[in-house]
């Protein structure tokens, strides 16, 4: 059924569901993710998106690579879209990911989430669910301990937007 009904605002304070799963270090498998990530045509990014990325990078250059962005290429409605970001990194004391951020191109606001990874993260992989207002690019950024920044950009087609007038 529809995500928003009269009951929605009656939700109580909420409950965290926590599950822990055993997982072995999977460094080798990560390169597979990188290989099948969808590269996106290099149309220039809108100014506000470029600015948001520059703010994250804090003066460091941003390079494409090392980051994989796992998100459906075609989405029916865009209300709840699973997304995973993984970064190719040994996650050692000397060489690890400190932060991952997600940005979008055409929602009302560019930021989706900023993630900070603790020193014992072990694996630079984060998953969440996001909203997409229309067909657009999603950008994942990772900052390394040495300050270097890496990115991946993927386009997602959101189809329900087709029902709505183009002035949206």
């Amino acid at each position, binding site marked *: 059924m529809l*995500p*928003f*009904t*009269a009951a*929605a*605002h009656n*939700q*109580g*304070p*909420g*409950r*965290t*569901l*926590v*599950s*822990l*799963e*055993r*997982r*072995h*270090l999977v460094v080798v498998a990560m390169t597979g993710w990188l290989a099948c990530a969808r590269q996106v045509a290099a149309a220039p990014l809108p100014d506000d998106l470029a600015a948001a990325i520059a703010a994250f990078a804090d003066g460091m250059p941003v390079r494409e690579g090392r980051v994989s962005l796992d998100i459906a290429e075609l989405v029916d409605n865009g*209300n*709840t*879209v699973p997304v*995973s970001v993984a970064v190719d990194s040994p*996650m050692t004391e000397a060489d690890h990911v400190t932060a991952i951020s997600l940005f*979008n191109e055409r*929602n*009302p*606001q560019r*930021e*989706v*989430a*900023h*993630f*900070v*990874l*603790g*020193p*014992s*993260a*072990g*694996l*630079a*992989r*984060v*998953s*969440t*669910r*996001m*909203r*997409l207002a229309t067909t657009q690019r999603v950008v994942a950024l990772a900052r390394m301990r040495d300050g270097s920044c890496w990115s991946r950009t993927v386009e997602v087609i959101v189809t329900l937007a087709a029902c709505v007038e183009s002035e949206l």
Partner: protein
Amino acid sequence: MPAQPRRGDVIEIRAMIAHPMETGYRAGSDGQLLAHDLIRWFNCSLDSGNGKELVFSAQLFPAIAANPYLAFHLRANKEGTLHFSWEGDHSFRHTETAPLRVV
């Protein structure tokens, strides 16, 4: 009960909270306007006896879908208590803990 990882294993932690992530003014069928209501912050820390160490934190924006879901990883080097907290608009705050046992 969470699984018991071996020391040094990397585990995945999933957290979700029921919350509408209301982005704007919409009215329910009773006519009451639903004020914007977002969860803004999530924090997971591990307390293994000498203070809390950050495991993972997130700043969330309206583009995060309702009933926010987060999955992240931790190398299980030490035992302790995991602390989870969600914070948001209108002084929303929800915390929970879960033990982390390591074999």
